[in-house]
């Protein structure tokens, strides 16, 4: 993992964080690790009986801090690349064998 923790800068890079809510134990350590205040605890409880981490998407920079400190490894972090145009082009070409995950 590179040390790409550029928070607060104008958003060249945008992040997206996905929590496996059924495995989250609600310890809140990710909340303290997020410099953008981009994580809160759910009101509902999951199958394990814990309130779980909920991500405020548009605040995410993709810094991975939350995921790094997550004891249970339930957080996946995605990030746009600075070279995004190029990448979009590439995707079109290799679409058939790509594992694409659409969030929403």
């Amino acid at each position: 993992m590179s040390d790409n923790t550029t928070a607060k800068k104008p958003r060249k890079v945008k992040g997206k964080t996905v929590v496996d809510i059924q495995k989250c134990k609600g310890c809140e350590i990710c909340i303290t690790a997020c410099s953008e205040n981009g994580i809160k605890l759910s009101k509902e409880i999951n199958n394990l009986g814990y309130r779980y981490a909920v991500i405020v998407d548009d605040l995410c920079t993709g810094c991975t801090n939350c995921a790094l400190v997550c004891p249970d490894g339930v957080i996946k972090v995605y990030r746009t690349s600075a070279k995004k145009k190029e990448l979009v082009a590439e995707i079109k070409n290799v679409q058939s064998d790509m594992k694409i995950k659409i969030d929403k």
Partner: protein
Amino acid sequence: MLTGEKDCIIEDGEVYELVYEKPLTTLTGTRMHYCPGCGHSTAHKVLAEVIEELGIQEQTIGVAPVGCSVFAYDYLNIDMQEAAHGRATAVATGIKRVLPDKYVFTYQGDGDLAAIGTAETIHSINRGENIMIIFINNAVYGMTSGQMAPTTLVGMKSTTSPYGRDADFAGMPIKVSELIAPLKGAFYVTRHSVHTPGNVRKLKKAITNGFKYQQLKKGVTFIEVISNCPSNWKMTPVKSNEFIEKEMLPYYPLGDIKLPSKEDLAGLK
């Protein structure tokens, strides 16, 4: 670069590439039994990440202790042995002596390593066994639910120091890293924590070195990890991390205690 397998999200015409995910090949995927926010889980995850990234899953044999991490072998997808309480470094010695080209590590708590297993700890280090010792210092006996450990801070309450540890009565908490660092067999001694992202990154680097240095066959790499124990400290995970910062780190300062010299590291791949 983008490969056919790479996980990504496309939203509003933008491509979000996966940049962090827990290790999938070196963790079994079994949900860890640790309490919410426990540093053991984070340390396991970092360890698994390093094994995955170094590509040494096939060459690595781990030794689990008796303590909360007794089930480490359920979570780490590598060959492992479960040792008797305190004897992990003796078990690791046995393994490493007959399989000298494998990477061998122990993962031990403070009761295991610094109380019942002190003799094995000191002597395996003194012999310069080419193993990595990961030492989880949470200042308490976690598994047996919160008794005083050799590392419990002065004044800190536990079920067997209910009025706070009294140094006159129970002695001072042992600084194991400082204790063993002067031994010649200790090649690399360093103290880290898992309570902040920055510290997790540093720990990862240390564990990476801990493995790599084994190639040199120059002795033990000893990585102390200051960890929390929210349940037995009777704090929320967040509060326990604050306790680490405020109480643990002043007594157990983070950083390298013994570094190999440049000459020592010559020939390292």
